[in-house]
């Protein structure tokens, strides 16, 4: 069953320099229990897409399209309704746990908030839940650590606390934004192991946002590749590595360390001044006249494999 269905989603920021078109017509489904990786270069709109799902974008943003959660459009919900979804049905794990946690509240207080709010637990019971949760994300001495403040935690422990905070209400969908970015390599590996473990048994779906394809490959079933504001390829992890279709995806794979570290020529376009037609055409060696004029649609090229490129038309 489809849990979340994003249809023709657009998110534009109004700034002094003009409209920043961060998300430009994204179509994407997440099935129940599916782990979907959203990958793309820094600045291509991944975080904005994640925030749009929970309606957490700032006031100066126009969001269009539909985000159907269990059939209900999140974008037309009342403020009251969306607050019942946040933290309870869909939770978010943010990039950079240090700045994403309140410096003047204890970790315990912050992790407890979702259960106090949505499951109406009393402070004491909530704290008991928090301690169990911290134990399950392998934070040592949880009874002591709930009383500490975020700055007293190490980077890895903070990320674990963030994960606990996201999972404490057992949401149906968790959006994890770069959960391993900024951590030491060994800590990164530990967090990936932990996420594998906590997600394996729960039926929770996940949207994993990352610029690191290897992290997505470890944790996800399917991968959506984003290029300025669009999904340009969608495939299972296996298909994506074995048989990438889009010239950008191929270039992205070739730029990985174990595949030769060959960077893609050119730079990503500015979101204020996006090229017409296929957004990748200025960097694409196979571009034709048509690519400069028309925007390609997502084309089915295999079982659950889609690509936005005229080569397969």
């Amino acid at each position: 069953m489809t849990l979340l269905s994003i249809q023709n989603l657009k998110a534009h920021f109004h700034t002094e320099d003009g409209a920043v078109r961060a998300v430009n017509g994204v179509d994407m489904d997440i099935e129940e229990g599916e782990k979907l990786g959203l990958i793309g270069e820094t600045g291509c709109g991944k975080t904005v897409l994640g925030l749009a799902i929970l309606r957490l974008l700032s006031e100066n943003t126009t969001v269009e399209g539909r985000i159907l959660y269990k059939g209900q459009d999140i974008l037309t919900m009342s403020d009251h309704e969306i607050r019942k979804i946040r933290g309870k049905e869909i939770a978010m794990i943010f990039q950079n746990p240090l700045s994403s946690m309140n410096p003047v509240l204890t970790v315990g207080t912050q992790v407890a908030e979702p259960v106090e709010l949505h499951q109406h637990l009393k402070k004491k019971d909530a704290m008991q839940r928090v301690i169990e949760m911290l134990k399950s994300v392998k934070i040592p001495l949880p009874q002591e650590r709930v009383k500490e403040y975020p700055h007293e935690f190490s980077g890895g422990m903070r990320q674990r606390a963030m994960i606990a905070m996201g999972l404490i209400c057992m949401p149906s969908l968790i959006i994890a934004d770069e959960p391993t970015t900024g951590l030491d390599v060994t800590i990164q590996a530990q967090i990936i192991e932990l996420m594998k473990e906590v997600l394996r048994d729960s039926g929770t779906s996940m949207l994993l946002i990352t610029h690191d394809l290897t992290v997505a490959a470890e944790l996800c079933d399917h991968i959506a590749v984003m290029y300025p504001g669009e999904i340009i390829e969608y495939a299972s992890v296996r298909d994506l590595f074995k048989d990438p279709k889009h010239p950008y995806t191929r270039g992205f794979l070739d730029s990985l360390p174990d595949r030769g570290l060959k960077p893609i020529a050119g730079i990503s376009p500015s979101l204020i001044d996006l090229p017409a037609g296929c957004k990748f055409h200025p960097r694409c060696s196979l571009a034709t006249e048509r690519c400069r004029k028309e925007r390609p649609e997502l084309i089915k090229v295999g079982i659950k494999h889609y690509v936005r490129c005229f080569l397969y038309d």
Partner: protein
Amino acid sequence: MKKFIARRLAIAVIVMLGASLLSFLLLYLAPGNPAHAILTAQLGHDPSLEEVAFFMAKHDLNNPFLVQCSQWLYMITHVNLGMSFRTGEPVLVEFIDRFPATFELASASMLIAVLIAIPVGILSALKQNSMLDHISRLVSLLGVSMPNFWLGLLLILFFSLKLGWFPCFGYGTLSHLVLPAITLGTGLAAPLMRLMRASMLEVLRQDYIRTARSKGLSEQVVMWKHGFKNALIPVITHMGMQIGHLLAGAVIVETIFAWPGVGKFLVDAIYARDYPVIQGFVLIIALFFVLSNLAVDILYTYLDPRIRYDVENGK
């Protein structure tokens, strides 16, 4: 923490000694002879040369600078601020007599400032660029740029002379307190409000506010539980530093409204060249300044858990 406080108190002693030595030096170098000034006031006519000489000798004013300095140091280290030239009373007693009036004025002003600045600053931030925001910013800009004495005179003109609602000077009843407290309070409120607004806006931009919203918390909980305490930290610092300025402001406001507090007595002492009073009061005001800053630093550790003074290098 104990070590921190001890170190700060040691610094406080140095600051106070420095401040009083400086004021001593300024007086020594300033033109005007205390004997002449005080005797003229006391006698009602110019004193004779003998009278001046007698006064100078009696108060050790003929001694060389360094001797006078060390006499002063000897005295204050024995908790003795000397006697006022004018009244003949001990300086400490003069201060203690007048302190309640100043304390009353200062607390009322601070209260007015806090009651105006914090709610308006927060509302202004939450409703950024609304009519309320524009008006409150304009008013606070006026408040920041308008000198205290000017506002005080305007208030006297309007509310006291024209409308007759409040007495224009004096001390004793609550209605005497209104105009001076408003004068001093609005002067404090204006910068405080701007700071509260800016600080709240800054906090609302932080990632942890977004995290709080992502849990489904209502806007009220996000503002008060997650925003307010963080936004208050710089505001409290500012208020702590304002305590010193509050005393300086009191000097002016007390003079305008003939408020019988420390500030007015200090101004009178300056006109009269009443050296012991000036030096003693400067010393006590410096003490207040240092202690209030210390109190704010200690309060800090309760507001912001990241600040701990007992950890090595952990500032």
